[in-house]
């Protein structure tokens, strides 16, 4: 009796704690972003489809399990049945999952083929991962620069800095030089690295791609809406792996052209300091 009480109490306490969780937490932080590209929406769609499939299977299997746990217990005086196999049932529950998987594989294949098709792109950006910042180069446009964690975040993130992360706007999500991209343009990325493997990830685009030293990985995106999109390095790359964010500024096409022009003019001055970026 006493055991039961104790258990109940601790269960209750922890359950309360767990329920208190969502109240504290940012509730929008539960699911994958839908993103701002056709691709990211497709990936989100796949994610939700497979998620609901698992939910349905889960409800059925766990439903049966808990029904059994509640009804088929010795304390209710049941006599155990003797059956121990049924070929028909076993075949059925092999075939049905197989069919579900085939159904799932078809849309997944379509999206996968689409993401990996980098033809027909209108511009190319070369992305290079360094320990621990990113280098960007607009191919054939003579514009290139490095992009590092912004100074404020960098100051706050030092061990024992005394600066509260909450007081820093976009803590660890801000950079000195944003990657400016035009909307409604099919952009090809050529992703590589200079030292160790990194991974270039902007969740709003719907993918990440590893930056591998000595090799170039190609992929593409086409942004639907202007805006600021934030991402980060997703492959462990050493001490400051957590401190090399990515910030995209997506702008209208003409705005982008103006920006590019301004960069080209300003870049000759910056070139000396940014020499590391070119390789």
């Amino acid at each position: 009796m006493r055991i039961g009480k104790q258990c109940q109490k601790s269960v209750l306490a922890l359950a309360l704690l767990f329920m208190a969780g969502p109240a504290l937490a940012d509730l929008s932080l539960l699911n994958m972003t839908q993103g701002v590209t056709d691709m990211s929406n497709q990936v989100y769609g796949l994610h939700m489809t497979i998620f609901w499939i698992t939910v349905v299977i889960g409800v059925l299997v766990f439903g049966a399990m808990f029904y059994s746990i509640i009804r088929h217990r010795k304390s209710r005086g049941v006599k155990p049945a003797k059956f121990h196999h049924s070929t028909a049932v076993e075949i059925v529950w092999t075939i049905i999952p197989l069919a579900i998987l085939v159904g799932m594989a078809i849309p997944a294949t379509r999206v996968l083929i689409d993401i990996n098709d980098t033809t027909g792109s209108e511009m190319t950006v070369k992305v290079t991962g360094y320990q621990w910042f990113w280098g960007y180069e607009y191919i054939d446009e003579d514009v290139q620069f490095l992009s590092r964690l912004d100074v404020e975040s960098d100051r706050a993130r030092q061990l024992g800095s005394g600066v509260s992360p909450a007081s820093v706007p976009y803590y660890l999500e801000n950079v000195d030089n944003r990657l400016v991209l035009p909307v409604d343009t099919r952009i090809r990325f050529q992703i590589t690295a200079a030292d160790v493997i990194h991974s270039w990830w902007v969740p709003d685009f719907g993918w990440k791609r590893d930056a591998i030293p000595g090799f170039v990985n190609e992929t593409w995106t086409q942004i639907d809406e202007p805006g600021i999109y934030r991402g980060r390095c997703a492959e462990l790359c050493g001490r400051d792996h957590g401190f090399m964010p990515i910030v995209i500024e997506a702008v209208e096409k003409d705005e982008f052209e103006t920006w590019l022009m301004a960069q080209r003019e300003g870049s000759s001055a910056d070139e000396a300091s940014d020499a590391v970026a070119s390789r």
Partner: protein
Amino acid sequence: MAQAESGYYVPHGSNWPIIGSVGLTSLVIGIALYLEGMGLGLWVMGAGGALLIYMVWGWFADVIRESVGGLYSAQVDRSLRWGMIWFIFSEIMFFGAFFGALFYARFLSVPWLGGEDPATSRVLWDSALLAWPTAGPGNLGLDWKPMGPWPLPTINTLILLTSGVTLTVAHHALKENNRRRLITFMWMTIALGLAFICLQAYEYYEAYAHLNLRLDTGIYGSTFFMLTGFHGVHVLLGTIMLIVITLRCMKGHFEADSHFGYEATAWYWHFVDVVWLGLYVFVYIM
């Protein structure tokens, strides 16, 4: 059906495993220290290696004593067989990792770097014509030559194949209780094994002295020396096993119908043989 026909021998306490653990650990700590530039490592390594050899010696002496003393039933014999079979399987998988690296380099990474993946070859390396054998796009100007199959590797192939035959003849002689023939053919096998090792050493000398082919000659040198090197180490080990087993034959060990130690060595030798055939085809010829 598995059953204990005549009782299963379970040895009681043995000191060898713990000695082996200390030996192996000292050995690798020694190597690690040495690699990190600490000369002391060589001493630690030597001590560990000596301890390990002492352990192997003592452990096998125990096994031989027990075996000769008739403690091993047919079931124990089968356990040892399974043990050896799975050990050889694990060795095959170890070589598999290096063969995998070779195939990956030949059929994927080198072609990618050599133009099949235009972005990589154009953007980073300017290496559109890279093809096997190669030391990689970073070593394009390097002057070196690959190791062809003729003459040394082919002679070595013949030597190893012949040694497989002489070993089989010896095995039949053992089964027929023809000790003289057994011992003669065992020494022939050992001689062939030693010849192989000498030729392999000579081949390495050739590679370094005349072909400028070295362990650090890009992916070709890496796969060539690692595959042939690990194989060579296995031949060396196999030869030592053959010598031990031959000395035991000369001491009158083994029966015509019960000689697992002998068979295990023979299996090992054939395994080394087969790996070589893989090397001959994929490293030297293709």
